[in-house]
């Protein structure tokens, strides 16, 4: 098995893992029965991991969300979709590899899947542009969503991006316009839309495929209005304050449930999705099917009205009553 990539705060586990490896090696070379010892150490490691992951700070969650071995859009698709056929192109001269899409079946339901795709290593990441889509990516996503709308396919969207790509060509091709149109058109869709933040949800680049009837989020995923690094360098004038910014911005699933933005937080295996990807896949599949079933009961009008109302309610402000206003004026 490939060596696990350990995060800074997972280091207390390193010693334990090492001991476990050593004992395993020993057992292989000799006749000594070490199963008892192994079990003890493994239980201990599991408990330590559980403790660490139970108390993750927001900035540690970001590290988990960006973990290079965290299951990606294509990983999840391979895990629980059948007959996956990837579809390409925005029909306007580009095919963005950072935002992919296609059709597949989940059990008996045909669905359209879209999502940002990061790479596992540098080479892959260069090809995938680190999951940062260009305008063509958002336009491809819209073209595919329109297709789903015509053929009555529910839309499953996976969010995993540091943000929309910032570059000369992206500006020239209208990055802002591409995202804006998606926001508006997703309200028009007559099929159920379920979005899941599987890794990091970076600002407008995430929202560009995120106007959904249900927004799911994994336990250690994050969804931000601005990257904590950028936020820290602007508001704190010190990029080193990113952990403080991460905490202040309220970016975890739990926080976003409280704010009425996220509908469901999906439990991750101990140690995060990268420790047991298949288990994460099961959790996601179960939730998607359950939500698809629920949304499938609604008429087109109900679906669109509820989607509108869901976003309509978002925001916190103070509204003086008519009586108060009299006092003010």
């Amino acid at each position, binding site marked *: 098995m490939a060596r696990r990539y350990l995060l800074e705060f997972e280091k207390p586990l390193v010693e334990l893992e090492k001991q476990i490896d050593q004992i395993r090696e020993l057992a292989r070379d000799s006749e000594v029965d070490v199963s008892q010892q192994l079990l003890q150490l493994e239980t201990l490691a599991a408990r330590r991991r559980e403790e660490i992951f139970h108390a993750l700070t927001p900035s540690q969650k970001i590290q988990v969300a960006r973990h290079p071995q965290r299951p990606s859009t294509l990983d999840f698709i391979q895990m629980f979709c059948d007959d996956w056929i990837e579809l390409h192109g925005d029909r306007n001269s580009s095919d963005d590899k950072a935002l992919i899409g296609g059709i597949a079946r989940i059990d008996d339901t045909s669905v359209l899947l879209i999502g940002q795709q990061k790479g596992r290593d540098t080479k892959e990441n260069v090809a995938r542009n680190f999951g940062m889509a260009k305008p063509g990516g958002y336009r491809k996503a819209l073209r595919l969503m329109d297709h789903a709308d015509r053929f009555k396919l529910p839309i499953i969207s996976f969010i995993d991006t*540091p*943000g*929309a790509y*910032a*570059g*000369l060509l*992206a*500006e020239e*091709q*209208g*990055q*802002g*316009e591409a*995202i*804006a*149109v998606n*926001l*508006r*058109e997703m*309200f*028009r869709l007559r099929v159920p839309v379920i979005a899941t933040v599987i890794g990091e949800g*970076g*600002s*407008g*680049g995430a*929202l*560009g495929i*995120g*106007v959904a009837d249900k927004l799911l989020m994994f336990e250690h995923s994050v*969804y*931000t*209005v*601005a*990257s904590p690094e*950028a*936020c820290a*360098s*602007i*508001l*704190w*004038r010190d990029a080193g*304050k990113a952990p403080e910014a991460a905490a*202040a*911005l*309220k*970016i975890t699933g739990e926080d976003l449930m409280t*704010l009425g*933005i996220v509908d469901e937080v999906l439990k991750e295996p101990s140690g995060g999705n990268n420790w047991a990807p298949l288990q994460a896949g099961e959790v996601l599949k179960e939730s998607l099917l359950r939500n698809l079933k629920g949304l499938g009961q609604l008429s087109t009008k109900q679906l669109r009205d509820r*989607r*509108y109302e869901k*976003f*309509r309610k*978002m*925001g*916190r*402000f*103070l*509204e003086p009553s008519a009586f108060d*206003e009299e006092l*003010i004026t």
Partner: protein
Amino acid sequence: MSLFDWFAARRKDQFVGKVIQETEEGDGLWGKCPECGQVVYRKDLSENANVCSNCGHHNRINSEERINLIADSNSFRPLDKNLSPVDPLGFKDRRAYADRLRESQASTGMKDGVITGLCNVEDIPLAIAVMDFRFMGGSMGSVVGEKITRLVEKATEKQLPLLIVCASGGARMQEGMLSLMQMAKISGALERHREAELLYMPLLTHPTTGGVTASFAMLGDLILAEPKALIGFAGRRVIEQTLREKLPENFQTAEYLLEHGFVDKIVPRTKLKSTLTKLLKLHGFNTKKRQR
């Protein structure tokens, strides 16, 4: 992310800080154009919509001045003017969000960064929103989002054309994800306005960036912009870092967007009202009810 980089760049370069400066006499009657250095009589300047008569530089104007330029006198009726911001996250960076809000409220006399309402333009009814850059950089939080959404809904209900004057650094970080969601909320309301086949025109003024560009600023049936206005999604500095090459001189200006097909028309401020009137009439919006 973009808007924040933009803010950072702004702080460094101070390029949006260009305002009419006092001359040495400092009697308040005369000022100096920040662009061409021409000494101008303030009264002349304000009569020319704060556009330098020598070089055509568009000085920043506030939301109230903008409404006075567009609306027939005494026709503007504000909506939801007492909607006030709260501090939903208990946000504190080097300073508390609550303090920043109080400060902006005191200096502008506004509750938050946008004025919305109904008015007449040459007797044609129009729903109008004007963002105010003085209020925390025109950033969009819950109040800005809610007021614009209510205005769009009102316009749809009353079958009115809609104008939103944009001036914003983007989503307001201090309200976190609630700010980001305002982009979707307003876009949803605009979808209904569009479905009702009503005319929506954003006017992009200096600067229009980040989350505002990635939502209602770019959703107009017709998109208008002021000369030289900075309009973009990502900050110039971020792009330079990724690219490691020089960007074109006019990058992210209104003229650049026009060239690349994202703006319909650049409208000098002095011709704003007449252009709006023409466009409204050409689309069948008349003094009484809309005729079709």
